[in-house]
Structure formats: structure tokens, C-alpha cells
């Protein structure tokens, strides 16, 4: 009892609790609103929208998962097990698609594959003038765009698994006379299973919570439906019911991912690390491999980036680069900086307390902070909105509400780099500082903070860049005069003014490139 009181009396503890409450309260409000809804609304939704939305969401996730599995593992295997000219270049280029927000890729593909678009023209040269290709505004289109955008998750994880595998297993298999292909199938792939599964779970989580691509491709998923309900109806009940379902679904995938990540420990090999032997390919093999990789990278990054540059240089687009445009850029930067700073300030006590005083309370608070993972943008916006309307109506429509939504949404990304940074500092150092006569504050200032500075910076940068490209929450909560680059892209693209959307889109892609460098080093999980 006394210890509990002692715990609660510490200001840091209070801050931790407050932060956790800030994140959990909105979710709680949405849940209670959904559960207390009139059963008639539930039954109406069950009989009309929910079956379609659930099947659409699950089918899209399943097909994207299958395709990313193929693309991700094959590309990872090629760059780790084969030696060919330009291998290192491709190794880096394969993560570039992650810099493309889904809405940018979606709008480019709705131009490319659109009715009467360039791809159809080419196809008509081959198959006759009446030939049609599939519409991008469909299940196939959404699958294609989401696959091209998310396969790098599987690629990154498979690549690191392939590099870390104990190659002796493969060598034993080869020595026993088993062919290269069969070794891949019987030995390598089973060993990679946990990383592949973790990668797929990430992909699925990403697909389930995506708003940008499905809204531009008009493919009805749960996340899109939440947004439509919020903007098309005068009360939020139906939106909260759909949100609850969505959170449930996302939670399911998150738990699966955690479970596989946990299991993956059994597969870590010990002993000395050895670089895997790379099979050298002749010119024919090199050409084929390069062709394949060029196709993948070209479709997911090269061609879209080329189009963005061309469109940005067009006179129509140049005319939009005026003071207003820089205003949008400033808004994006301002919001992102606030959100990142807020995220670090809130994340730090949470991570610190869970790490240094791992009581059930503190660990619970930290877990609560990861709730953002299962809160897709529209849901985070809805949650903050409902909370704000109930508790602090005077804040509604202010920048603060939007920033809180960002922080909730992106805190997990920040914590991913704050947590390990803290874990790496041994408490001994702090203890030594205390015994040498430093106070608590001085210890923080002179020991803990300087040691975790890098983790700090990485967390800030990650949250900053993610907020820059955030779309749905910004659309729903932005105050007057706070249009961001992402909003401009979406507004222009949803009316098919491709050229006008290009400069903002290009800028977002360019600003996203630094995240990739972070991804490649350690924090791959955060984006």
C-alpha cells in the first residue's frame, strides 16, 4: 500500500499515467459509443454493409499478403544468394517503394491503368482496338497498388533473415546432394518462416489500416467506410461500430505478429557468423535477374517517380507553386514538428518508467501506448473527436486536437526506437552517477539523456516524417487554413487533376527518403 502511494506520488509516475490515459481514453470512448448504440443500428449494419466490408478487407489483405510473399522473398533471395553486377544497387533500391505513400501510388496507377490510359493504349496495339484492361478502381487495382507499396516489408525481413541464417544448414543439405532449388524449399524457407510471417503480418496491418489508396481507388474496406460514415452522416454511431470491428481485426493481426516474433527466438542461430556463399551468375542469368528486379523497382518506384517529376515540370503544375504552396509546406512541417516533439515528450516517460521500474502498472502503460498500431487514421481521428466533444469541447477545431491524434497514431513508431535506446543504457551508470553525488535531475541531464540522444533523434525524425504524409486524420480534424501537402495531393488527385497533385506528391516522396535510411539500419519496423 505504501509502495503504491509512493509510486503514485512521484511526478514522473503521474506523467506516465496521464500519457497512457491520453491514449486509452479515446479508444474507450469509441468502444463505449459503439457498444451502447441502438441494436437497430447494429443489425442494420450487419445486414447491409458489414458483410461486404469484411469480405473486401479480408480478401484484399489475403491477396496482398500472397503477392508480397512472392515478391519479397524472391527479391531478398536474389540479392543475398546470387552475385551479379549491380547487386548492391538493387539491394538498396528495393526499399524505395516505402517512400511512396499509398495515395500517391494509387493516383499514379489510376492514371496509368485508367480507362484510355497509357497501359490500355499499349494493350490495344497488341490485342486489338476494342481490348480493355482491368479497371484500377477495383479489387485487382487495389491489390496491385498495395502489393507494390508493401512488399519491401517482407523483403527487408527476409533479407535480414537470409543474412543471419546459419549457412551450415544449407551447406549440409547441398553436401548431401540436394539440389539448390530443393535446398531453398526444404531448408532455407522453413528457417525463414518466422521472419516471413512477421513481415506478412506487418503488410496485412498496413493494408487493413490504409485509407489513401482505397479511397482513391474507391475500394470499400472498413477503414474507408469509417471515413465515409464520419463525413456522410450526422452522428458517429455507425462509424464507431465499424471502428470497433476494425480495431478488433487489426488487433488480431497484431497479436499474430507478436506471436511469430516471439517464436522467432527459437530460430536464432548462435555460433560464428559467416557470410553466405553467393552463387555467381553469368551474363544470361544476370540479365534475367536484372530484368526482374528492374521490373519490380520500376513499377513500384521508378515509373511513378518519373511521372511525378514530369508532371511537376508541366506548366499547370508550375503555376500552383506559389505562396499558397509554401504555406501548405509550412503547415505540413509545423504540424509534423509539433507531433514529433509531443510524441517524444510523451513516449520518453512511458519508455523510461517501463524500463527502470517495470511494475505491472508501468508495463501496462507502455503497452497502452502501442494501441496506435491498431488505430487506423480515421479511427484515431474519430476517437480523438469523440473524446474532445465529451471532455473538452472548447478545444474542438484547434490544432491541438489534430496533434493529439497524430501522437496517438504514431507513438508506437517513436517508441520502437526510444525503447531500445533506453534498454541499452545500463542502470549501473545512473547508479554510479547518484553515488558520486549527482541529484536525480542532474543524473538525467548529464547521464541518461546524452546517452539516449540518438534514439531520441531517430524517434523524432520517424514521427516527423510519418506525420508529414498522414492523410485521413488530417482531413477530418484540420483547423481552418491548415491544409497540408498530403491534403492537396488527395484533393487534386480525387478529382483526377494529376499534374496539379504532382509537386506536393513529389515533395512528400523526397522527404520520405530519409526514413528509408533509418529503416535500412535498425528501425525497419517503425514505418
Amino acid at each position, binding site marked *: 500500500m505504501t509502495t503504491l502511494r509512493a509510486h503514485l506520488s512521484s511526478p514522473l509516475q503521474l506523467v506516465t499515467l496521464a500519457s497512457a490515459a491520453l491514449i486509452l481514453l479515446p479508444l474507450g470512448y469509441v468502444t463505449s459509443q459503439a457498444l451502447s448504440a441502438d441494436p437497430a443500428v447494429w443489425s*442494420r449494419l450487419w445486414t*447491409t*454493409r458489414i458483410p*461486404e466490408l469484411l469480405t473486401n478487407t479480408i480478401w484484399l489483405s489475403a491477396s496482398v499478403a500472397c503477392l508480397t510473399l512472392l515478391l519479397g522473398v524472391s527479391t531478398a533471395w536474389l540479392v543475398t544468394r546470387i552475385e551479379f553486377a549491380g547487386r*548492391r*544497387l538493387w*539491394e*538498396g533500391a528495393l526499399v524505395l517503394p516505402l517512400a511512396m505513400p499509398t495515395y500517391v501510388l494509387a493516383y499514379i496507377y489510376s492514371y496509368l491503368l485508367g*480507362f*484510355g490510359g497509357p497501359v490500355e493504349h499499349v494493350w490495344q496495339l497488341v490485342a486489338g482496338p476494342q481490348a480493355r484492361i482491368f*479497371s484500377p478502381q*477495383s479489387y485487382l487495382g487495389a491489390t496491385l497498388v498495395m502489393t507494390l507499396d508493401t512488399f519491401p516489408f517482407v523483403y527487408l525481413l527476409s533479407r*535480414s*533473415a537470409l*543474412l*543471419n541464417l546459419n549457412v551450415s544448414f544449407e551447406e549440409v543439405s547441398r553436401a548431401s546432394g540436394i539440389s539448390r532449388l530443393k535446398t531453398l524449399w526444404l531448408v532455407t524457407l522453413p528457417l525463414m518462416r518466422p*521472419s516471413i510471417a*512477421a513481415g506478412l503480418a506487418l503488410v496485412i496491418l498496413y493494408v487493413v489500416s490504409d485509407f489513401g489508396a482505397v*479511397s482513391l481507388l*474507391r475500394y*470499400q474496406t472498413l477503414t474507408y467506410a469509417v471515413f*465515409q460514415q*464520419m*463525413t*456522410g*452522416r*450526422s452522428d458517429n454511431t455507425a462509424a464507431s461500430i465499424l471502428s470497433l470491428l476494425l480495431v478488433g481485426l487489426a488487433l488480431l493481426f497484431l497479436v499474430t505478429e507478436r506471436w511469430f*516474433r516471439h517464436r*522467432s527466438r527459437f530460430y*536464432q542461430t548462435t555460433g560464428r*557468423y559467416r*557470410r553466405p556463399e553467393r552463387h555467381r551468375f553469368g551474363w544470361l542469368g544476370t540479365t534475367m535477374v536484372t530484368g526482374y528486379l528492374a521490373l519490380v523497382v520500376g513499377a513500384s518506384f521508378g515509373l511513378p517517380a518519373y511521372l511525378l517529376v514530369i508532371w511537376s515540370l508541366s506548366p499547370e503544375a508550375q503555376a500552383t507553386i506559389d505562396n499558397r504552396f509554401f504555406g501548405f509546406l*509550412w503547415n505540413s512541417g*509545423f504540424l509534423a*514538428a509539433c507531433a514529433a516533439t509531443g510524441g517524444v515528450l510523451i513516449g520518453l516517460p512511458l519508455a523510461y518508467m517501463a524500463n527502470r521500474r517495470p511494475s505491472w502498472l508501468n508495463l501496462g502503460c507502455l503497452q497502452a501506448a502501442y494501441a496506435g498500431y491498431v488505430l487506423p487514421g480515421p479511427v484515431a481521428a474519430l476517437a480523438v*473527436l469523440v473524446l474532445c*466533444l465529451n471532455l473538452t*469541447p*472548447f478545444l*474542438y*477545431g484547434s490544432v491541438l486536437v489534430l496533434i493529439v491524434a497524430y501522437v496517438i497514431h504514431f507513438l508506437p513508431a517513436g517508441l520502437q526506437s526510444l525503447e*531500445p535506446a533506453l534498454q541499452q543504457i545500463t542502470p549501473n551508470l545512473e547508479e554510479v552517477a547518484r553515488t558520486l553525488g549527482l541529484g536525480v535531475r542532474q543524473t538525467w541531464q548529464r547521464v541518461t539523456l546524452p546517452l539516449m*540522444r*540518438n534514439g531520441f533523434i*531517430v524517434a523524432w525524425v520517424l514521427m516527423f516524417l510519418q506525420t508529414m504524409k498522414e492523410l485521413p486524420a488530417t*482531413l*477530418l480534424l484540420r*483547423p*481552418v*487554413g491548415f491544409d497540408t501537402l498530403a491534403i492537396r495531393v488527395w*484533393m487534386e488527385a*480525387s*478529382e*483526377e487533376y494529376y499534374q496539379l497533385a504532382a509537386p506536393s506528391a513529389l515533395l512528400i516522396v523526397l522527404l520520405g527518403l*530519409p526514413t528509408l*535510411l533509418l529503416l*535500412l*539500419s*535498425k528501425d525497419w*519496423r517503425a514505418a
Partner: protein
Amino acid sequence: MDSAPAAVIDDCPGFWYLFEMAYHFQFPRSTQGRPVLLALFCLIACVAQAATVFAVEKLTVYSGRSERLIKPVLDEFTSKTGIQVDLLSSGTTELVNRLKAEGDRTPADLFLTNDAGSLEQARAAGILRPLNMREVDRAIPPQFRAPDNAWIGLSGRFWIIVYNTTLVKPEELKSLLDLADPKWKGKLAIPNAGSEYLQAGVSVIRASYGDARTKEFLVGLKDNAGGQVYQKSSQIVEAVAKGQASLGIVNHYYIYRHLAAQPTAPIAAFMPDQQESGMGAIMNVAGVGIVRSTKHLESAKLLVEFLVAQAGQKLFADLDKEYPLHPEVKADPALVERKNFRAAQVPLTRLAELREPTLTLIEQVGLR
């Protein structure tokens, strides 16, 4: 998996090294300057934000109309009066929700929408301010504004059929309700269920023909449209022009705006339900209301005055191809002349009360 062994980093191509360098970059040892710099940055940020807030006389307009259609008109107002206008463009329903939630604290001075039903709802919720302005009474006929002038219609639009002239003959068309016929399966493009024009249109059909007939119509519409459900009317017109859809239902001015930009596009407008005993074309107005809590009443009134006056009305006619409501301002000559067709006899003020059951019906049918 989480902590990549050093070998992976050794394996990084050149440009990752750059990052590694940046990552391990050390700040200069002296820490004295940093808080000052940080504070300076915050100060600059705050001042920049504040500067935009406390500028000269300024109006904040919440607009449910596409920014492309309304911004030129507001820019004209600014250049005439010097009053700055801050525009928040978003969905109409979303903005009504927002105004309700913000109550008296709303920064909005005026509310512009694409739908009379939403304006009437906002009036019923006490968001809008009744007006007593001679200019309004003179310019806008009474059927196009609220009884207390809490909202004022600015321009008329008709929910009509756009068809591709190479794929459809006008003789095949008569009533909107015929679009539910299975012969249009896969050929029809419609707006999504959240669109206020669709909601208002369905309300008018309900008022004219009853719920059972309307439901039948919506079911047919849903089947015929399939995946061709669009967020924006401009996309529907585009799809019809390209032949992706043979016909669609849109507000008339999107057709004429498209034709003004691309005169050779193979599209035409069809004014439906003009046959004997037909209900007439479905009309709606875009309108404006002054928000009750505005602190800039005089400037807001100036803007309303500008919008209803002949010059402002002419902008709606010329730029947006809408039907101006001012009796002395002529519509664009490309449009079907107003006196040559009939409009449905459902008063605009009824759109609000019809709306909730309409939404339920739309949801029952499962329109997207």
C-alpha cells in the same frame, strides 16, 4: 531480428554509410547554446502562427463546395473589398457536424454549401443567423431562401443525366427512374451515398413517388452501377466522356464545365422527367448562411451582399455554369434555358425533414 548483427551493417551499400555517419553525428560539446536555439525556434514558430491569426479584417468561410468552384468568386470579393477570406473546404455534412460541435466557439463566419437540405438542417440546429437585408429580399426570390433568411440560395443546379452521344441516343431517355432498368447494367455511373446531391435527389423522388417506388429505383441503380460509384461529379462526367460509362447522374454544371474546357467531348445533358405527369427535374441550390456567433457581422453581410448582387451572381453563371437565382441575371447561353423545362415541385425547405428517412432507405438498399 530486431538487432541486426554488425555484419548486416557492413553489408550496406555506400549510401547507407552516409546515413550511418549522420546517425552517429555528434553535436558540439557545448550544450549552453542549445536551449536558447530551441526557444528561438519555438518563438519564431509562434510568431509566424500568430501573425496569420491577427491579420487585418478577415472572414472565415466553411465551404462544402468544391474549392475550384468557389475560390475564384471569393478571390474576386477580396480584390474588391480588401477583406481576406480564409477558406476551409470539406464535405458539407462533415462541416454541419463540425459547426454543431464547435458551437459558439467556431471560427467560422459564414457557411457555404452545395445543398439546401444541409442549410435548413443547420438553421434548425440554430447555427445560422436570421438576416434582415433589403439586398437579399430584392435579389433572391423567396422560394430559394429560408423564411427568416437564415440561409440564402445563391445558384441553382439540376440533378440530371449526362450521356455519351456515341453510346446513347436521347430518345432512349425519359425519366431518372428509368435508369434502374436492367438494360443499363454496367453502363451507369452514380455518385456515392455520402453525396448530398444524391441524398437530396432521393428525397425529392420519395416525396414525388413514395418509398416503395424509390426503393425499387435505388436497388436497380445499385445493380446497374456496380463498381462505378464515384466520389465527385467531375469524375462521372469524365468517365462518360471517355466512354467508360454510357451515362451518369450529375449536377448539370459539371457537364457544361467539361464542355467549356473540351468542346469536342462526346457528351450531352438530358433534362429528365419532363414528360407529361413526370415530376420535373430535381432542383437544389447552393447557398450561404451567416454563422450565429460571428464576430465580423458587417464584413459577413458585405460578402452576402456581394454574392447575391448582379455581379456576384454573374460569376456563378459564367465560372460555374450554374443557374443564377437573381431574376435579372442570365444563365450561360450553352445551358438549356430555364423557362424551357419544369422543376420538381418539392420545396427546398422540406429537404431537411426528408433527409433522415432518406438516409435510412439508402443504407437499407446498401448503396455505397
